[in-house]
């Protein structure tokens, strides 16, 4: 491929020895990264490998790093996204920087609108310039329409055009296709080709195997904050790529007692969750699963796999977007909303305790009893004494460290907040516990506590479905692992057949059993 071709003797960007710490934690260690003109450079790695941190350093979000960045041979240290964009580096995020009700042309020139004297906008000049820019990139969009009239895929293209219009030479795309439909993806790839031809350097982060195969010229793999390697795409087989990403041998550091599964607790068939807007592929596509009493079913999938949505759907939180058949302890059951689910003995620990798990201003006791109020109240009147007793019992069982049960949960540490969220769900005595990233953002001690409790709960007959983006955790805790890729079930592995490679392969869209 055209990576080290003599026509481009120097890279656009040369990052050397980049190290970044968050407190005591080193998230990047001496990473080297080059971007050459006219190449698509795929940055790969598991969740938490340090991809986003590296991009944020390049994009000026973090400026307190060690190491050097050279842009076209000049040493730079972008201190803000604005400065990075002045230097010709554009990062295209999921959250676009467009103003939806404004016209395409206005958006393209936002902040540098061509003006006459007195600040009057030179509309005609702006329109012509916008048309020329879009034509150059092969986009046929009416520049006088408000951006919000266009679907997300087109808006993303407009965002890229906006960056190109600002003389961006380096364009970084972080999972740009995760919310796009198939034709939208095609249009994006066409634009990528155009940009390559113009000599831009593109960094592309993706979890999708087929996209890597299709557009990558060069691949750099990060693992645990370090660079594993950087090679032309043709020299790296899928197998090898996955080995690079997984790397370490996964040791048995978690005490999972192998369960004696009982009867089937939960079964779903043909479970589908529609996309958020019409015309988009379903987020979860005809998935069938079951989990037994005393069993932990691991649910694996990379970003955009639909695993979280599957749990939300089972829990009734997505309302009519979710459809399919569901059995609880052999009984066909309909769950229309979270209230139904809780009454039927299903609990869901969401993956973000701050936005969907806890009411931060409310007290520990109020949060811990929120889901169980119907049982704790009499004739609708609260009984504060009983609530306190219940909350105290839960916080003892979970060894919650809080100065008082009356203090707002906002004042607790992350691990203790997670314990309050868990306490809320244990309080309703669930039969099925859905855990979405239960150990996210908690320290090692609490993590091990949670593993220990999961053993206890399953021993008591609870069925658990677990989502975790940490591969060792998933492999060690799950009795079985179901893997999702773009909403489809791509593998179901028993404990003894599950390896990191096989899980990752299925998560990146290779069906089990097919070898490249």
């Amino acid at each position, binding site marked *: 491929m055209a990576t080290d071709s003599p026509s481009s003797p120097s890279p656009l960007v040369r990052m050397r020895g980049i190290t970044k710490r968050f407190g005591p934690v080193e998230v990047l260690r001496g990473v080297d990264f080059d971007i050459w003109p006219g190449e698509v450079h795929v940055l790969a790695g598991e969740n938490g490998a340090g991809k986003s941190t590296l991009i944020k350093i390049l994009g000026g979000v973090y400026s307190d790093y060690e190491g050097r960045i050279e842009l076209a041979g000049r040493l730079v240290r972008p201190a803000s996204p604005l400065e990075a964009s002045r230097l010709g580096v554009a990062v295209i995020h999921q959250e676009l920087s467009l103003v939806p009700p404004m016209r395409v042309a206005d958006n393209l020139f936002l902040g540098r609108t061509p003006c006459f004297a007195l600040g009057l906008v030179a509309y005609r000049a702006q329109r012509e310039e916008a048309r020329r820019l879009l034509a150059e990139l092969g986009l046929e969009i009416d520049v006088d329409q408000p951006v919000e009239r266009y679907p997300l895929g087109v808006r993303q293209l407009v965002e890229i055009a906006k960056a190109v219009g600002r003389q961006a030479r380096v364009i970084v795309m972080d999972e740009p296709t995760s919310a796009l439909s198939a034709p939208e993806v095609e249009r994006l790839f066409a634009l990528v080709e155009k940009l390559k031809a113009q000599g831009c350097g593109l960094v592309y982060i993706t979890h999708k195997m087929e996209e890597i195969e299709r557009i990558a010229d060069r691949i750099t793999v990060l693992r645990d904050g370090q660079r594993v390697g950087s090679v032309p795409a043709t020299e790296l087989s899928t197998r090898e790529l996955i080995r690079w990403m997984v790397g370490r041998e996964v040791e048995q550091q978690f005490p999972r007692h192998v369960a004696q599964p009982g009867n089937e607790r939960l079964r779903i068939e043909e479970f589908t969750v529609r996309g958020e807007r019409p015309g988009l592929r379903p987020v979860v596509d005809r998935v069938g699963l079951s989990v037994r009493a005393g069993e932990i079913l691991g649910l694996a999938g990379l970003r955009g796999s639909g695993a979280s949505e599957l749990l939300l759907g089972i829990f009734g*939180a997505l309302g009519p977007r979710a459809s399919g058949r569901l059995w609880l302890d052999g009984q066909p059951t309909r769950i229309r909303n*979270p209230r139904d689910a809780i009454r039927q003995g299903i609990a869901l620990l969401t993956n973000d305790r701050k936005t969907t798990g806890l009411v931060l*201003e409310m007290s520990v006791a109020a949060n811990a009893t929120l889901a169980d109020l*119907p049982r704790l109240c009499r004739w609708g*009147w609260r009984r504060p004494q009983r609530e306190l007793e219940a909350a105290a019992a839960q916080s003892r069982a979970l060894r919650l460290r809080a100065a008082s049960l009356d203090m707002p949960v906002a004042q607790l540490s992350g691990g203790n907040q997670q314990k309050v969220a868990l306490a809320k769900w244990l309080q309703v005595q669930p039969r099925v516990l859905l855990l979405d990233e239960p150990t996210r953002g908690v320290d090692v001690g609490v993590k091990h506590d949670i593993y220990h409790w999961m053993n206890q709960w399953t021993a008591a007959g609870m069925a658990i479905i677990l989502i975790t983006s940490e591969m060792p955790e998933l492999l060690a805790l799950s009795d079985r692992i179901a893997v999702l890729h773009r909403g489809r079930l791509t593998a179901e592995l028993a404990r003894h057949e599950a390896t990191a490679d096989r899980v990752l392969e299925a998560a990146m869209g290779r069906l089990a059993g097919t070898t490249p």
Partner: protein
Amino acid sequence: MSEPIPPPPRLATRWLYSPAARSVAALLLILALGAVFHHRGAFFRLETHKAALRQTAEYGMMACGMTLVIISGGIDLAVGSILALSAVLFSLATIHWGWPAWYAIPATLAVGAGCGLVSGTLTAWLRMQPFIATLAMMVFARGLAKALSGGTQVTTAVRNPDGTYRWVDVPQVFYAIKADLFGTVSMIGVLFLVCAAVTWLLLARHRWGRELYAIGGNEEAARLSGVRVVRAKVLAYVASGVLAAVAGMCHAAQEEQGNPDAGEGYELIAISMVVIGGTSLMGGRGGIGLTLLGILTIGYLDKILSINEVPLAWRLMLTGTIIVVAVLAQRRPG
């Protein structure tokens, strides 16, 4: 394994930073102002305080309902118009149609509840912005009040079929409402205190109150915890409408008529009482105790300015300033 327990803030400082402390301070400041500008001892007479209670009562009732709505993360601009609608309806029913009180009172309360039901359904069920939905309700209820009354006050002068007027007695229930209970405290003041006590009880001790805090604090977390969000929110607007209807009947009784133009701007006074008390407009934080402090602060400020015969123009400017100062002082440090 062992994480440090977050050190609790020192007691004295924590108390000082609490919204309650700040509201108490604001109230004390206003009372001190009254003690200085007592206007030949008028401020120290019991009569003055009883009058202050009676004059603040209507605003106070609405502020209690407003507190429920604001804690759930909404706002209710319709209460002033609902007061007028209720006053008109109550006067028509008791004076013109000759309904006994035990028909007229529930009917008026039902209309207030109905208005709240509409506002609540628009916001909670149809997801309209509370500001817009209740603004629409405010305009509509005002129009309905004018339609019912024919655009004029509903007084004891009743129009005969032949176009002449006859005078009828002021209904007994009007006298009952504006009378002094046991010859000392005004019935209206007592009604207000009852409204405050009931809303306090609901917020502090009822499941619904806990649900309102949860919704205002984090609606999605509340929904995922099985809270019936729509129902809880609609009920808050219904309660607000009912309390506005109570205020409306008190208004009618005091004026011995139903004025379709009554209560204009009252919603803003009620909101400012809630906010000065320290209940957050973002929802999830606050309470009736705080609102009570806010009610007393504004009520006393108005009373002190009026016994000192400060001209209306100055009173308005001063009230506006006080609201700004109080809310700035409410800001949490950091």
